[in-house]
């Protein structure tokens, strides 16, 4: 922020500390995916507009013999500029997820921060929690810094934290559904129980969803489709950046208590009638 808001005695009103994941600090609490864009140029512009510093990428077979001069994602999302977060999307077993992470580490010269997801079902893309726990254990022993996609179960979230995951990322709704925060009380319980960053991963549809997740006290949000599938992805990326910041400030500010009936904002005393 160029001009942070200040209180009457000129001290900054928000005493927020930056997001810290695996010992590294980040100023943006919005993490974005790089999938589903119409072009690499759109990916570049939306990623820039989001202000995100951590960007997820997928690991896939190289197309042999097709367009050898085609620009690659890493020319647009440079590892020099962003912290890349290789994911294990598309993996349905712990073995496949571990194998994908090891390939990612080789691809990115020893980079060990990864997003673990082990899927259980193609229709819902819900996580296979037992396979996720199994893969997390293997990866952590192998020296990876694991940010883990999971469901919104507070017990499993805690168990993943206890295994040594550096961040736990419960879904708010199914991946790519844009249904918003379906179970805010579970997310809240996960946040309250945690001593690692909790990030909502998946399910956010629009800016208000992002603000709600942040108001619950989440450390950040990871999203892809909400930006990439918007009519104007670059504008939505900018909206999400603001929503995450606004939600964070509202969380830090502490909302007013809810009341069932009205409470006048103007004084009753001095009325002329």
């Amino acid at each position, binding site marked *: 922020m160029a001009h942070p808001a200040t209180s009457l005695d000129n001290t900054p009103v928000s005493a927020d500390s930056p997001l810290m994941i695996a010992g590294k600090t980040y100023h943006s609490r919005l993490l974005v995916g*790089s999938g589903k864009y119409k072009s690499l140029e759109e990916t570049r512009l939306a990623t820039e507009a989001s202000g995100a510093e951590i960007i997820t990428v*997928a*690991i896939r077979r190289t197309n*042999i013999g097709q367009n050898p001069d085609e620009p*690659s994602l890493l020319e647009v999302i440079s590892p020099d500029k962003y912290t890349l977060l290789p994911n294990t999307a598309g993996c349905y077993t712990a073995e496949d997820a571990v194998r994908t992470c090891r*390939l990612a580490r080789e*691809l990115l010269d020893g980079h060990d921060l990864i997003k673990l997801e082990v899927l259980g079902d193609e229709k819902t893309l819900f996580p296979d929690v037992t396979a996720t726990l199994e893969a997390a254990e293997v990866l952590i022993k192998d020296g990876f810094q694991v940010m883990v996609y999971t469901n919104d179960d507070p017990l499993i979230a805690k168990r993943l934290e206890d295994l040594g995951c550096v961040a736990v990322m419960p879904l708010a709704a199914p991946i790519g559904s844009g249904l918003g925060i379906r179970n805010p009380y579970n997310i809240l319980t996960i946040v309250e129980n945690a001593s690692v960053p909790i990030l909502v991963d998946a399910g956010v549809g629009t800016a208000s969803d992002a603000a709600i997740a942040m108001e619950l006290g989440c450390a950040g949000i990871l999203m892809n489709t909400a930006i990439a599938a918007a009519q104007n992805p670059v504008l939505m990326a900018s909206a999400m950046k603001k929503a995450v910041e606004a939600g964070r400030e509202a969380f830090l500010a502490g909302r007013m208590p809810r009341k069932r009936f009205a409470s006048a904002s103007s004084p009753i005393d001095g009325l002329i009638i």
Partner: protein
Amino acid sequence: MKVTVNGKNHELKPRSSLADLVQLLDLQGKRLAIEVNQEIVPRGQYPSFELAELDHVEIVHAIGGG
């Protein structure tokens, strides 16, 4: 000799190295990771890594994903 690369058969000269394969596929200088028979081969070992008949090679790169 026959090897499988990303699920497709390729015919290589006997005793070809992984570096030879990368060059043959016009992938030199690209940011890749390679597995042979599910074991990662570090980039620095491509010139010295000799492929064998029926090896399964996987060549991957980073693409957009969430």
